[in-house]
């Protein structure tokens, strides 16, 4: 490089400004790539991994249970007191054959929904309990556990596994509400103060996609319950480690 050429490539204000703007544009594109693609895949993988690890821990501690016609009343675990405690896993074959997500206590975006996946509304009932087991998760980005929430069809099974057993819910219907529609997580949805008799599950997420304008709500009702040591439902058997940690 000779001296004359060096003189021509002096730094100018407009040149620096232009390069800064191009750099900013590149960073915006990189961020979108991270948010919509890279982090979505990474977080989704971590969620499946965590769900698998959880069930592995639970199943290592249980003994096989002989089949029975009726398991009786569902076992209901006490609600975790600490935020971000993972106490259950979620399986929805309609969301994908290999769909498995961890459920943790709390609905904070930074504490639960981003790092873990599915969050349980504090104060709502637990899996299998009479009332409403209400959970929330992202519909887009961060692994998007409820990406396919709008594709649920009548009769679809929603499985929740805990250290105690597997709770099988059947999808019953959906509803669209405003962000303030807290009635959907009442023990009897939309009927405040009414004593519940059904065992429900409620899934909430954002609607439309990438928006905070409304919420999409999906309801299910408990169909059956079984202890964790029993033969798992055929639909999700391939997602659960063997009983006894084999």
């Amino acid at each position, binding site marked *: 490089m000779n001296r004359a050429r060096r003189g021509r490539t002096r*730094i100018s204000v407009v040149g620096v400004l232009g*390069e800064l703007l191009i750099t900013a544009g590149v960073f915006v594109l990189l*961020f979108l790539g*991270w*948010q919509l693609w890279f982090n979505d895949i990474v977080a989704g993988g971590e969620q499946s991994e965590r769900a698998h690890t959880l069930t592995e821990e639970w199943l290592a501690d249980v003994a096989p249970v002989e089949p029975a016609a009726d398991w009786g009343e569902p076992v209901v675990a006490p609600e975790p007191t600490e935020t971000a405690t993972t106490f259950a896993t979620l399986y929805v074959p309609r969301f994908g054959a290999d769909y498995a997500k961890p459920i943790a206590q709390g609905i904070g975006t930074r504490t639960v929904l981003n790092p873990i996946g599915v969050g349980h509304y504090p104060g709502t009932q637990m899996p299998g309990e009479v009332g409403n087991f209400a959970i929330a998760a*992202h519909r*887009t980005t961060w692994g998007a556990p409820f990406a396919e929430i709008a594709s649920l069809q009548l009769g679809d099974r929603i499985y929740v596994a805990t250290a105690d057993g597997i709770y099988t819910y059947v999808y019953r219907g959906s509803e669209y509400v405003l962000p303030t529609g807290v009635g959907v997580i009442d023990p009897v949805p939309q009927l405040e103060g009414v004593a519940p008799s059904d065992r429900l599950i409620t899934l909430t*997420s954002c609607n439309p996609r*990438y928006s905070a304008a409304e919420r999409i709500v999906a309801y299910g009702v408990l169909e059956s319950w079984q202890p964790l040591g029993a033969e798992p439902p055929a639909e999700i058997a391939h997602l659960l480690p063997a009983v006894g940690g084999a």
Partner: protein
Amino acid sequence: MYAALWRALPGPWVVRLLILLVLAAAVLYACVTWVFPWVDTLVNTQEVTVEQ
């Protein structure tokens, strides 16, 4: 700006290119690990929970 950076780097062009690639990788790593998750909390457009 980038021309100045290129001139400031030592060695032949191959070495400069390698240094730039390492720098770019470091910047990208920092973005993915700290900057982008932080920005995501600022531009978060979706809310998935019902609340009063």
